[in-house]
């Protein structure tokens, strides 16, 4: 019963058995590997279509975080006088906005991805995991574009990156995994409960204030720090600031808790997704 849609290579013909249900943690990794080209095309489609028929095109990827940065600098930096660990507030907030914007886009897009691709899901077979996976990956393009603006700002503020900057891909990867984990849950839930789709924008808004975007982690009372780390993005943003802005050593405790939280979300997300996946085509 456990091994259900397995492809077994017998000679050169593969045998597929379609049965009622599959195992708890059957990832169909070989199926995902087999369909890697489709994953590539889905990501490519999302990127390609993203700024079609717009005037400034990919400029939007820079505009949005820059505008947010300005408003945050005025409101939180100047009016509210929120500390920024001794760094210029604009770059302090922009460094956090990069991973945050990526994460927000990735979960909002992967959250509605299954419903948005309902026509595909009800007409063609492919590993369903590819849908939220591609939706969570495509916004990396925006990240890259916005990152170039960050480099320009660092030059402007005379901040020389150290070897810490080499860890950026790692933190970005953690952000991707976190977004995928949340995206798996949201997309699978959204298939059955469309309420999820409507609550995502609201969720993202709340989540941003629960993450150290506009304020430093040091503002959080020490006794609450570990609890604070349960927010997976706390560790990621903390990591970004450390890697790029030469802060003193980051709060390792927060990072570890964030990482553990991400793994928990990811594994449970895969299980939930895998179990509900079997009825997507019937429910969506």
């Amino acid at each position, binding site marked *: 019963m456990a091994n259900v849609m397995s492809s077994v290579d017998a000679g050169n013909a593969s045998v597929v058995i379609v049965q009622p249900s599959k195992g708890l943690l059957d990832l169909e990794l070989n199926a995902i590997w087999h369909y890697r080209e489709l994953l590539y095309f889905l990501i490519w489609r999302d990127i390609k279509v993203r700024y079609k028929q717009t005037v400034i095109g990919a400029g939007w990827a820079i505009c949005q975080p820059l505008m947010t940065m300005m408003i945050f600098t005025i409101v939180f930096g100047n009016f509210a006088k929120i500390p920024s660990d001794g760094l210029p507030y604009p770059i302090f907030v922009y460094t956090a906005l990069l991973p945050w914007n990526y994460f927000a886009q990735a979960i909002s897009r992967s959250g509605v991805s299954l419903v948005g691709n309902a026509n595909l899901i009800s007409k063609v077979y492919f590993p369903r995991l590819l849908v939220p996976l591609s939706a969570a990956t495509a916004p990396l393009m925006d990240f890259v574009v916005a990152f170039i603006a960050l480099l320009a700002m660092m030059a402007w503020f005379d901040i020389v990156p150290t070897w810490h900057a080499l860890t950026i891909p790692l933190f970005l990867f953690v952000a991707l995994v976190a977004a995928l984990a949340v995206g798996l849950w949201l997309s699978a839930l959204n298939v059955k409960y469309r309420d999820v789709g409507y609550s995502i924008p609201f969720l993202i808004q709340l989540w941003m204030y629960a993450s150290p975007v506009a304020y430093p982690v040091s503002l959080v009372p020490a006794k609450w720090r570990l609890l604070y780390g349960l927010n997976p993005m706390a560790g990621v943003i903390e990591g970004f600031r450390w890697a790029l802005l030469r802060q003193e050593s980051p709060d390792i405790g927060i990072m570890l808790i964030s990482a553990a939280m991400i793994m928990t979300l990811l594994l449970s997300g895969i299980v939930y997704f895998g*179990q509900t996946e079997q009825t997507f085509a019937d429910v969506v």
Partner: protein
Amino acid sequence: MSDLAIQVEQLSKQYAIGMGKYRHDRLCDQFTRGLRAMVRRKGRPHLSRDTIWALKDVSFEVKKGEVVGIIGRNGAGKSTLLKILSRITRPTSGYAKIHGRVGSLLEVGTGFHSELTGRENIYLNGAILGMKNAEIKRNFDEIVAFAEVEKFIDTPVKRYSSGMYLRLAFAVAAHLEPEILIVDEVLAVGDVQFQKKCLGKMRDVSKNQGRTVLFVSHNMDAIQRLCSRCLMLEDGRLIANGSTSGAVARYLSSDCSRARPNEWIDVSRSNHTGTGQARFVAVQYRSANETVAFQPYSYGPLEFLLDIVSDSPRSIGSMAVTLFSLSGTKLVNADTIALGRVIGLQKGHNKVAVRIEQLYLNPGVYVVGLWLANPIDANFAGAEFDYVESAFEIEVVHLAASKGFGLNSKSDGVVTCHFELLDVTCEAVGTGIAPDWQEKVSLQ
């Protein structure tokens, strides 16, 4: 290694029809139930009151290289079966063993994105259908040529006409090269020319390339042309598995909107005009060919047995059975007036038999009209006794035994005829027909 392509055992699929009810469940109820189900690994699918078996205990086998048609009414479970076989959804119980790479076409143009160009959509759609990038590259020019969209290949498909869109979509699908091809009603779209092209391609795929094909259609003509064997589903159960002609005949005769052959059809409640002094009350029709369950077929005979009630003895100079096309064109009018025979009716029920020797109609659905009059007594006011313009419908089928490439679809016209190829001459120069062609023909 076995020569089986598909092996289906006791396949069943249950759907909850009261979906709305679950919506009102509390989310956390669902949640705990879901968790419990996960832990139990869904050993037994839970039975609910608002459920329907879309598929029930269906078992069959398909050999490699076989072309199998699946027929049945709407809601018979055909699409559910295809969805399970193409792994879009899972069965509730039973299993299907599939040997080889499956390509399924449940719709043309799945995943087309209107913002992308024709070229981009070919790659995207190809990938979605399971083609390898290299495979798409190799077939790219052929796909574009098949779709006849060369000039617009770098235009977003949202600017395409619906015909171009459809052609491009089918072209990609047609170049899918799986070992097992699953096709659902794809031919039901497009204009006549395009349908013909699709049918030709389907035939090419199945006959010449030796692939296993499962083909669902309501087009009995296409089914008969393409399939060597047929499965028929009714209410989720497999009720026929055998020769195409038998299954098709069974399908046609199970249609309640169309009258069955060889059975009395009550026409007394049809729309009658005329005096009604003599009138049709019931009719039987048949082709006298048992292998197609007496269904009429092209070039075959067609007999009618008419039950006429008359209020007194009278003579009928003109009794006619008329066949109309569905659009209402009168195609055949078998009128006894042409025979110069007068039918003498007695008071009460009279049985009259009429036989059309050869039916020169292509496969399709036709409407039967009935006419009863006595034009010889034209000075009488009541010369027209009965006229039923649309008594019932009959379906003319294609007798599988006929020769040909099977590509003469009904789009070639309503009426058919006997014809033959006389001679083929070759002229070194010039384009005209040889001047002595008449002599050559007469030699035949």
